[in-house]
């Protein structure tokens, strides 16, 4: 090499673990910066950012009905984020939550549409199981190929999303088409026997979501399975040397991850849409990835972040009716927040050092 080898002006240096307090400070700073960046964007459009943020927050809480709507947004987000987090903990890039939600909803809808004469609770339990099994199997497919042939799971789960979506359009245009509907083809509305009951004004999906939250927390933190997941996530070779059956762990975890997403689909169809719509997942599966990552895959963090995001979603719809701004603002702001959090992680683990003259 030439003698004037390029010593960079700025170097990146790894630093030993920062204290927990510093870590939290940096993360909060990143969050505030993200909101500021979003505010600048609003200012650029010619609106008052404080006023707009105020509208979003008050929009989500202003009445009992508004708050119930916020919770309705939160239920699928919370559940699918929990599902996704299980896979992510294992460093299995399951971005197929969208598809697993859909397949779960399709399987549950079969019973809602064709066996709605069954006793109410039996029917709901069967639908619940069908949703879990459907989503679980849809998650098992990429896990099988990943563990056997090391097939890229990111792209595979992604393709399965679209395949699932077109399964719904097939059913809607063909075998499950509601003969009574005029105009655009759609699937019949569930009878009240196949709908989830309401508890405190919101369908009881929220109770299921909270139960799942606790179960996932215990599963990850206090069971052997949960430990195995984190070891596989850290290093597959370590897991192998420790005598773990990595293949089995991948398959099992993905069945659970997909199963939770499948249950989400059942809850959405029977609790919120009251039918099987092609928008049953509606991007929730993707947002769930952001949520679980922002929460550092911690179940209670997921509860917090998904609540925050639901406020944002509900508030954005109020913002739309007040200012005529698109609800896509929610995904813009969600993106900005995660960008900043991703960036701030760097400052927790590394720092920049100016190179002194004449090398080091």
């Amino acid at each position, binding site marked *: *090499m030439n003698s004037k*080898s*390029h010593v960079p002006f700025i*170097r*990146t*240096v*790894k630093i030993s673990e920062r204290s927990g307090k510093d870590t939290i400070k940096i993360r909060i700073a990143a969050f505030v910066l993200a909101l500021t960046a979003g505010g600048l964007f609003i200012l650029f*459009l010619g609106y008052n950012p404080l006023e707009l943020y105020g509208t979003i927050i008050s929009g989500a809480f202003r009445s009992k009905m508004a708050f119930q709507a916020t919770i309705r947004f939160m239920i699928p987000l919370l559940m699918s984020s929990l599902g996704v987090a299980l896979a992510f903990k294992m460093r299995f*890039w399951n*971005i197929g939550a969208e598809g697993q939600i859909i397949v779960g909803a399709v399987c549950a809808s079969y019973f809602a549409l064709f066996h709605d004469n069954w006793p109410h609770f039996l029917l709901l339990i069967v639908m619940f199981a069908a949703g879990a099994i459907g989503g679980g199997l849809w998650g098992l497919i990429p896990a099988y*190929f990943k563990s056997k*042939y*090391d*097939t*890229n799971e*990111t*792209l*595979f789960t*992604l*393709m*399965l999303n*679209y*395949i699932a979506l*077109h*399964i719904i*359009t*097939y059913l809607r*245009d*063909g075998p499950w088409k509601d003969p009574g509907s005029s105009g655009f083809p759609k699937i019949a509305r569930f009878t009240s026997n196949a709908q989830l009951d309401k508890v405190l004004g919101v369908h009881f999906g929220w109770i299921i979501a909270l139960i799942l939250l606790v179960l996932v927390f215990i599963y990850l933190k206090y069971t052997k399975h949960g430990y195995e997941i984190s070891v596989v996530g850290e290093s597959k070779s370590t897991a192998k040397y420790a005598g773990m059956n990595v293949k089995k762990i991948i398959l099992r975890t993905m069945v659970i991850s997909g199963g939770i997403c499948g249950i989400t689909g059942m809850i959405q169809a029977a609790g919120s849409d009251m039918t099987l719509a092609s928008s049953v997942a509606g*991007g929730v599966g*993707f*947002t769930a*990835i*952001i949520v679980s*990552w922002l929460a550092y895959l911690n179940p209670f963090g997921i509860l917090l972040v998904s609540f925050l995001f639901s406020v944002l979603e509900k508030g954005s719809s109020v913002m739309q009716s007040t200012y*005529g*701004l*698109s609800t*896509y*603002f*929610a*995904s*813009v702001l*969600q*993106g*900005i927040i*995660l*960008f900043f959090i*991703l*960036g701030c*992680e*760097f400052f927790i683990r*590394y720092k920049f050092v100016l190179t002194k003259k004449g090398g080091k």
Partner: protein
Amino acid sequence: MFIKFLIAAVFAGTPLLFGTVGEIMNERAGHLNLGVEGMMAMGACAGFMAGFFYDSISIALLAAFLAGMLGALIYAVLTITFMANQNVTGLTLAIFGVGISNFAGEFMLVNSASNSLKLPEQITAQISNINIPGLSTIPVLGPLFFQYNIFVYLGVLIAITCGIYYSRTKTGLNVRAIGENPGAADAAGIKVTKLKYINVLMGGGICGIGGAYCSMIINGGVWMNNPVNGQGWIAVALVIFASWKPFRAIFGSFIFGAFNILKYYFPKTIITIPNAFYDMLPFVITALVLVVTSIRKSKENQQPASCGVNYFREER
């Protein structure tokens, strides 16, 4: 009829071609960028709006390119400099890009005079099909090769340039070295960070142009939400189908374009298949390609080895 089908396949495959070549540039530099959909969406919006206001194809293309590049810049800063997780950053870019594109599109739509945005005359003429004089009148070959719009030629040109870049030029080979082993490349005196930035940004810009094709051509010159509509994701998968080679991306894109439009051309008299299955086809085939390539595990057609892993100089 068959000629018509082939032509339609080329048109349908062009946005995929841009997206695929753009993603190849990212992955060759060792960065698995899942944000293609987002970068294309940003390019779609910027390109359309620039075309709408300035009525000029060159300004529209430039705007689309810069918008795609801007998306890539966010990704590049986060993954190259800040070493953030590539999968998550890319996915966020996809969600953010689609979000901001639709947000801006709706913003313009609401503030427009007639509640609709339609490209003006001059640019509409500029993006319509060009009959290359002398060649376009040849029977069969003329319509098949010489009657496309400017995007198609541009896309093929970019893909060929890119192919030469990665197989015949020193810089291109250096980039490939980075993609395989950035530590070794760095030791050999290759400027890893700089080349990574250049390739990721250029790739993003190319994706942006592909997005402009979606909003300006596919939707017939009228702004509609979600112009890219999943094409970016197919492009990410097509990279595998093309085994990271820009030349193969040309044929791969047109083959997938053919799948996209098959339902309009497949003779319904033989067997009727529900439309949903045709729409599913590209995704099913991509999934099969993924599985088959992973089972075959050929040494030659593999992802660049460092793809998805960030490079930290002090940890070689």
